[in-house]
């Protein structure tokens, strides 16, 4: 009789007809004396057939043009058709905005007694690093649409953001540090538009540079560091510009990048 005991792996391989004939016969002999196990493996076999009959018809469906076209090398600049607005504002993103609004509202409500008046609350806007970290947390995880304008159109991106925030702004080049620009977007700041540039390294790690021009104090500051959850932020103020560099990477590496960003912006 069978020298080797029948293992779970044997049973799986039996379902997939992956056993050598001799072993297959041994397993079947064993199954004949094990009705419960026989029933279990035959359920697996049924599953397999059910999955095939459910999904096999997809093989015969005509291919969408976009996919068929990709059987050949795509031209260097493949432009995807713009997605409908609703899809760009994915449910997740809308949920995030609602959540932020709710948290804001709740925080205001809970703290209103602790502040002298609503007026002074309005004068205590969210700090630069916090706004930058929230913007980072909201947009950087977005796999498909992290930016509004991609880096392929960098000139347009720069012209547009400069115009909207009312000051010339140019994304620094961080290729030497492993990060490539993937694009940017416009965001609401405390009192006006803010620009966000997003970078990504080879591992998919993202980094955002948040540039605001609504710094009222005009008081330059040295590098400062803040930690918001898992997001580390280096920020500094230069005239009316406030810069914040955010990423979920360690402080040392982020400091190195922040220094490079600072140097490049300083030279402009």
């Amino acid at each position, binding site marked *: 009789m069978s020298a080797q005991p029948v293992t*779970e*792996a044997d049973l*799986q*391989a039996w*379902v*997939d007809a*992956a056993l050598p004939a001799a072993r297959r016969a041994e397993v079947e002999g064993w199954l004949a004396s094990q009705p419960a196990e026989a029933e*279990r493996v035959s*359920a*697996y076999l049924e*599953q*397999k057939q*059910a*999955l*095939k009959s*459910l*999904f*096999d018809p*997809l*093989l*015969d*469906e005509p*291919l*969408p043009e*976009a*996919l*068929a076209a*990709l*059987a*050949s*090398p*795509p031209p260097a600049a*493949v432009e995807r058709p713009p997605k409908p607005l609703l899809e760009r504002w994915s449910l997740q993103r809308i949920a995030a905005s609602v959540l932020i609004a709710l948290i804001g509202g709740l925080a205001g409500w809970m703290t209103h007694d602790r502040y002298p008046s609503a007026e002074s609350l309005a004068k205590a806007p969210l700090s630069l690093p916090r706004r930058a970290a929230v913007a*980072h*947390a909201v947009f*950087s*995880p977005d*796999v*498909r649409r992290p930016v509004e304008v991609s880096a392929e159109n960098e000139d347009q991106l720069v012209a547009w953001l400069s115009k909207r925030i009312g000051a010339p702004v140019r994304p620094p080049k961080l290729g030497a540090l492993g990060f490539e620009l993937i694009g940017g977007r416009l965001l609401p700041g405390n009192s006006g538009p803010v620009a966000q540039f997003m970078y990504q390294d080879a591992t*998919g790690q*993202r980094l955002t540079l948040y540039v605001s021009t609504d710094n009222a104090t005009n008081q330059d500051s040295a590098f400062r560091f803040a930690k918001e*959850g*898992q*997001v580390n932020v280096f920020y500094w103020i230069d005239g009316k510009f406030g810069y914040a560099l955010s990423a*979920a990477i360690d402080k040392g590496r982020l400091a190195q990048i922040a220094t490079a960003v600072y140097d490049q912006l300083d030279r402009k």
Partner: protein
Amino acid sequence: MDSRAILAEIPRLRRYARAMLGDRAAADDLVQDTLERAWSRLFQWRPGSDLRAWLFGIMHNLRVDQLRRPGPSTQSIGDDDLELPTRPTQTDALELRDIESALNHLPDEQREVLLLVALEEMSYADIATTLGIPVGTVMSRLSRGRERLRLIMNGDNANARLRVVR
């Protein structure tokens, strides 16, 4: 790389993506991303090796990236008790008997192995290479996935969730 060879693989990639994601549009997006990435990494392709396994491997990695990337606020994903339905799933008994919805109750990595075996009829060794995991892991995921699917199909969903298997 031969365009005809790729064209021949696209329907299989679509079938698998559709079964994995349960959503046609998302599946086609994933296939499109896979093909774009394949073209951009053509230099990694070794002529004469298995084109299908290479493409499925790319698709797998993209999917892992997608699941992993939601950086700041995500939890790490465990191998065992991952409940990650790709779309809202109903819990009424009738629907649970439907294999497609039962499939969506499986953790991603079990569903993946199950589908590569059932639809692609890949060998365990090829699946291990494609997914970058040991053959033993392929076997245990397959075994757990099948058993879980069986329990769900039997309407024994509570057990399927609670059962500790390794």
